[in-house]
């Protein structure tokens, strides 16, 4: 069993700092990892659960569940204000996670880590705060056709409010970004390039370093939506040289309701607040108000303290498994699943052919079976997949299908589960006489 992060508050001091640079597991064993996830031993419709909806949200290991519970049991208090012991412990734990998140993402300064609800809120923060100050009529925001709605709609709203325009860059037949089109689209009117690191539908990993260079060449800022990448691969903001990066905790084994916006300090310092209220102010007078320093300027009101502490436990757990190990395991599993699906002649699989160009996300259709019907039949077998437009309707229109079924993997999934999944697809074919 892994040590529980902040489970014992008496040892809180000793859990700070270097102790989280834990030794990663020498041998990666998904079957062993499963034991850390209580939910994976439950049955669904009479069969052992196969959870392949990880791109929607991941399951939580005991260490995360206990970290949240132990905050409420042992040191629940509001942070940054109280003078008493509980407030001190809660504040230490909360700020400790900020430091760990900075290390995890290789941010230079911990105040570049802003806690928000999720990736969506992080992107909305940039659109409302940075966007309203820096984007005007005739300016351009360049995004891609494979964005999740969360990295489309905030920019459309900003464009509506400022008279700017949003330009979409398309994808190739193989499901990868048309890089040369991006080069054409980004010009000196472009204020921001906002791109998903990994597609939640196609699984495609975008070449964010190269995209960032194109943005910066034209003086535009570069935002990376890391919601689908950071749970599964190393995301290093210094290496990518992105100006903003957003992700959600719940897709990386953390609780729902907590996410992170990373921003380069020089930009965050120059940005006006997003939400007003407590915590984000320095002084409030009837005649006016001055803002608090980073990161508090962007954390109005009591934050999701338990969520932050749970996120810290998730980061510790991922560090322990080793993000490289997780990625390798998922690539193997994805390759295994792609091979099996290639054997089903009725299966249409979308996205890159090679598992090396993907995260563990596979979208597909089987014959004329609608994705919802497929998901219903798989649910019968205890297998959870996603179906529909995946909050990516422009991509669906681009590909020309109304819906897709999607299986998405995580560290705890196994080849045996992929076998059960493929067997269930055969059941669906029989039901629909495909």
């Amino acid at each position, binding site marked *: 069993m892994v040590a529980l992060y902040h489970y014992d508050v008496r040892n809180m001091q000793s859990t700070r700092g270097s102790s989280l640079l834990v030794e990663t597991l020498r041998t990666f064993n998904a079957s062993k990892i499963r034991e850390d996830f209580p939910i994976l031993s439950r049955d669904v419709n009479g069969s052992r659960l196969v959870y392949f909806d990880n791109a929607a949200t991941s399951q939580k290991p005991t260490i995360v569940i206990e970290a949240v519970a132990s905050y409420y049991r042992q040191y629940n208090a509001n942070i940054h204000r109280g003078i008493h012991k509980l407030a001190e412990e809660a504040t230490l734990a909360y700020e400790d996670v900020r430091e760990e998140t900075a290390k995890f993402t290789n941010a230079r300064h911990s105040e570049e880590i802003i806690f928000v609800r999720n990736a969506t809120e992080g992107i909305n923060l940039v659109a409302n705060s940075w966007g309203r100050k820096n984007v005007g009529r005739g300016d351009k925001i360049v995004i891609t056709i494979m964005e999740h709605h969360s990295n489309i709609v905030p920019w459309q709203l900003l464009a509506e409010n400022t008279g700017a325009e949003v330009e979409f860059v398309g994808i190739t037949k193989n499901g990868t970004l048309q890089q040369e089109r991006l080069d054409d689209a980004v010009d000196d009117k472009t204020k921001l390039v906002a791109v998903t690191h990994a597609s939640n539908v196609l699984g495609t990993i975008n070449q964010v370093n190269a995209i960032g260079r194109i943005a910066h060449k034209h003086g535009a800022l570069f935002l990376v939506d890391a919601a689908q990448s950071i749970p599964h691969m190393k995301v290093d903001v210094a290496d990518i040289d992105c100006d903003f990066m957003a992700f959600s905790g719940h897709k990386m084994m953390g609780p729902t309701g907590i996410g992170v916006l990373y921003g380069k300090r020089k930009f965050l310092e120059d940005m006006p607040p997003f939400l007003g209220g407590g915590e984000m102010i320095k002084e409030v007078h009837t005649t006016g108000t001055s803002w608090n320093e980073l990161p508090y300027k962007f954390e109005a009101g009591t934050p999701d303290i338990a969520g932050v502490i749970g996120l810290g436990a998730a980061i510790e757990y991922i560090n322990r498994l080793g993000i490289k190990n997780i990625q390798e395991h998922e690539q193997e599993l994805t390759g295994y699943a792609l091979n099996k699906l290639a054997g089903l002649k009725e299966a249409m699989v979308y996205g890159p052919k090679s598992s090396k160009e993907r995260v563990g996300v596979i979208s597909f259709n089987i014959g004329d079976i609608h994705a*919802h019907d497929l998901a219903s039949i798989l649910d*019968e077998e205890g297998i959870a997949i996603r179906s*529909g437009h995946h909050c990516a309707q422009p991509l669906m229109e681009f590909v020309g299908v109304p819906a897709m079924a999607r299986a998405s993997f995580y560290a705890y999934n196994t080849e045996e589960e992929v076998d059960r999944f493929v067997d269930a697809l055969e059941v669906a074919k029989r039901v629909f006489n495909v």
Partner: protein
Amino acid sequence: MSSDIYKDIILDYYRHPRNFGELPNADIRVKDANPLCGDVIEMQLKVKEGKIADIRFQGKGCAISQASASMLTETVKGKTLDETKALGKQDILNLLGIDPGPTRIKCALLGLKVMKLAVYGYLGQSVGDEVKQLV
């Protein structure tokens, strides 16, 4: 819910939908989608003397949504607008012959919702919450 919902009759209506297509000179056409899953249904009605004289539907979606919409068009053809307004969830379940369960019931009711929007729209009446909450 079980795979039993995919009875032959539902698959038959999915693959060979009755009253599917364009209705030229429709008196009213209404389209609506289930925003959660993207299923779309459009109903087109021709009304004569308070009755649905002709009807066509078009749409995209799962077997449950398309089959139930198609079955519904057959049911209402020749019915008065008042009779059509009175149709409810149970009528759809009776048509399907199964209860698709809580996660799929909205698929089954999309056609009914659009049908009601069309009838109320034709009559120039405002739609109650009862209709809005169908899907």
